[in-house]
């Protein structure tokens, strides 16, 4: 038994770990009732990558590159290959990820299973939009190549399918060309929430990448103030230099007092006040632009041993800004500051994934230190706002949503259930569907 943790370090679980090193491997022989879940780099925040009492299939050593076409940028690699390794390989060749989450330390299999999105969602859609095909290994021993034309239903179920439809052994997807490793970046000071909507709207037209950091402790007329970052890949040919590995490390758990209302407030005030003009321009390497937190190994330890929650939801455009404002007000009132608050508008490019999270609207991601009941109470208060507005949560980040919220916001989950491999399950899935683990 092994105490592997998810990135949020909550909940604490125990499970067997079995290594899968080769895409040609068969699945381990399951004991009676043993349930599997693929586990890559463990960057899901909640329990989506955990399987309490079951078995995790560790895929990180199954990480070979199998084919690359330098003409089209189509890469086929084993599912345990990390985005980090792909960038190391692709950038010098003049290629970049079609879209990337805020960390490069995720596997390709995980990117498909969570149908991850990035700052270019309004232009590029989700990761799944760029997947040509993949191979799925089912517990009955079948190897199924899935694409929009072969096994199309399993293709749709597996993209955003949370690893439940079988083990993805390899993935073929399209990279995008770049002329330089640099990004032309503009940082825009946002005065309040209305300002955000205005600037975000205008930015999405001219910039491939947009995202805003928000000071979630600001209230009144400053509610929603923050910094919107927007960028494009530099057009003029530049050095195709890759990133370096992180040099900073958080070696120990911080005491849980380190991040409190005061320190978050101080940080937010300084961060916001740092910019003097409305728009600041810079040329940045892709690494600090896309992956600022990757610079510090184990940054999740700053939240201490009890871990933290990431609370990310989307609400549709139709429900206007009122809900977002209400959420900020309730957080400010609760005094539980979120160190990281990220706001972004999702575009309307549909994902092929059946359970895919992004949908047209506004997404807000918040980090909360785990303070037990106090935090859950806040989530309940926020949840009523989110549900009222027709919102939904991001399974890759979630450790909390009630089954009712899942059923309501992912109405096709029962249709999805038909594609789950009978030998696969996860702590997340059992929680949100109220299913008991078979032992």
């Amino acid at each position, binding site marked *: 038994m092994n105490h592997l943790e998810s990135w949020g370090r909550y909940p604490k679980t125990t499970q067997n*770990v079995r*290594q899968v*090193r*080769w*895409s*040609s491997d068969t699945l381990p022989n399951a004991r009676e009732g043993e349930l599997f879940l693929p586990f890559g780099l463990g960057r899901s925040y909640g329990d989506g990558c955990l399987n309490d009492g079951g078995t995790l299939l560790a895929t990180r*050593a199954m990480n*070979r*590159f*199998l*084919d*690359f076409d330098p003409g089209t940028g189509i890469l086929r690699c*084993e599912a345990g290959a990390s985005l980090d390794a792909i960038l190391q*390989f692709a950038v010098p060749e003049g290629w970049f990820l079609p879209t990337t989450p805020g960390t490069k330390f995720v596997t390709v299999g995980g990117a498909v299973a969570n149908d991850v999105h990035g700052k270019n969602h309004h232009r590029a859609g989700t990761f799944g939009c760029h997947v040509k095909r993949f191979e799925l290994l089912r517990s009955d021993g079948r190897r199924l190549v899935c694409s929009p034309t072969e096994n199309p239903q399993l293709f749709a179920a597996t993209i955003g399918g949370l690893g439940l439809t079988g083990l993805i052994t390899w993935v073929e997807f399209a990279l995008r060309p770049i002329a330089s490793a640099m990004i032309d970046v503009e940082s825009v000071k946002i005065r309040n929430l209305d300002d955000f909507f205005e600037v975000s709207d205008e930015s999405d037209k001219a910039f491939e990448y947009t995202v805003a950091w928000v000071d979630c402790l600001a209230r009144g007329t400053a509610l929603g103030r923050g910094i919107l970052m927007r960028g494009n890949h530099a057009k003029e040919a530049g050095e195709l230099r890759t990133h370096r590995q992180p040099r900073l490390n958080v070696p120990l758990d911080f005491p849980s007092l380190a991040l409190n209302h005061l320190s978050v407030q101080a940080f937010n005030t300084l961060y916001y006040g740092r910019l003097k003009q409305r728009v600041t321009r810079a040329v940045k390497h892709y690494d600090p632009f896309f992956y600022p937190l990757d610079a510090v190994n184990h940054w999740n330890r700053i939240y201490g041993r009890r871990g933290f929650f990431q609370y990310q939801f989307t609400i549709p455009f139709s429900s206007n800004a009122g809900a977002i404002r209400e959420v900020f007000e309730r957080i400010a009132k609760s005094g539980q500051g979120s160190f990281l608050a990220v706001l972004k508008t999702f575009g309307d490019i549909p994902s092929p994934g059946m359970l895919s999270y992004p949908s047209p609207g506004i997404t807000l991601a918040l980090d909360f230190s785990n303070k037990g009941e106090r935090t859950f109470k806040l989530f309940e208060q926020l949840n009523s706002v989110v549900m009222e507005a027709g919102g939904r949560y991001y399974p890759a980040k979630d450790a909390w949503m009630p089954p009712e919220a899942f059923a309501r916001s992912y109405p096709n989950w029962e249709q999805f259930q038909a594609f789950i491999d009978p030998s696969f399950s996860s702590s997340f899935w059992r929680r949100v569907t109220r299913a008991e683990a078979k032992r």
Partner: protein
Amino acid sequence: MKRALIIGATSAIAESLAGQLAKAGASLFLAGRSAEKLELIARDLKVRHGVEVEIAAIDFDDFDQHAPLIDRAAERLGGLDLAVICHGSLPDQKACERDWRLTEAEFRVNCLSAISFLGHLANRFEQQRAGCLIAISSVAGDRGRQSNYVYGAAKAGLSAFLQGLRNRLYPAGVRVVTVKPGFVDTPMTAHLKKGLLMASPETVVRDILRAAESGNCELYTPWFWRWIMLVIKVIPERIFVRLKL
């Protein structure tokens, strides 16, 4: 340019080593048990480093295949500068105690098949009066312990064979390196608890590559195992016999 034969090429250490050698521009011949796995490694090396590598599936236990395999590798690469023996298995000690056949099989793979390859390679390298032979032994061979002595004894045999070979080939200018890794985080040790002593294959491979350039002795990797084993070796037998190691 270096021409290298890797035997047991699908082990985690060997795979990482092949990647580093390919990156440095070596031409490679990879031999292992599984054609499927060798094919996956070959594809990876081709995509990442743009090199075509030769692969051959071989049954280590069929000793008659050993000499022809080496001949074929030398022929395909146009000669050999480096050979690395990486194959091995970590036996279930308790099962070996119950079943002689298991003990014998472990000796065949961990000791006999390795020294069979080394014998053929030594004759070739002695004749060409150049080259480097590397074999992965183990710190477990430095002293027999109740928890792991079948493996330890097989690796001790291999280590002593390599000592003799090093001695014999010294005048011919052929270098022989005995690699003694401690615990390495690979599938072979996947069931063991990951402690402070557990090293990554990359660390071990970096040490092996350095030894391939100029080494000619026993290489403990990571380095601190030399001192750990020194202590373990000097404990008098009448005290050692009471220990639970």
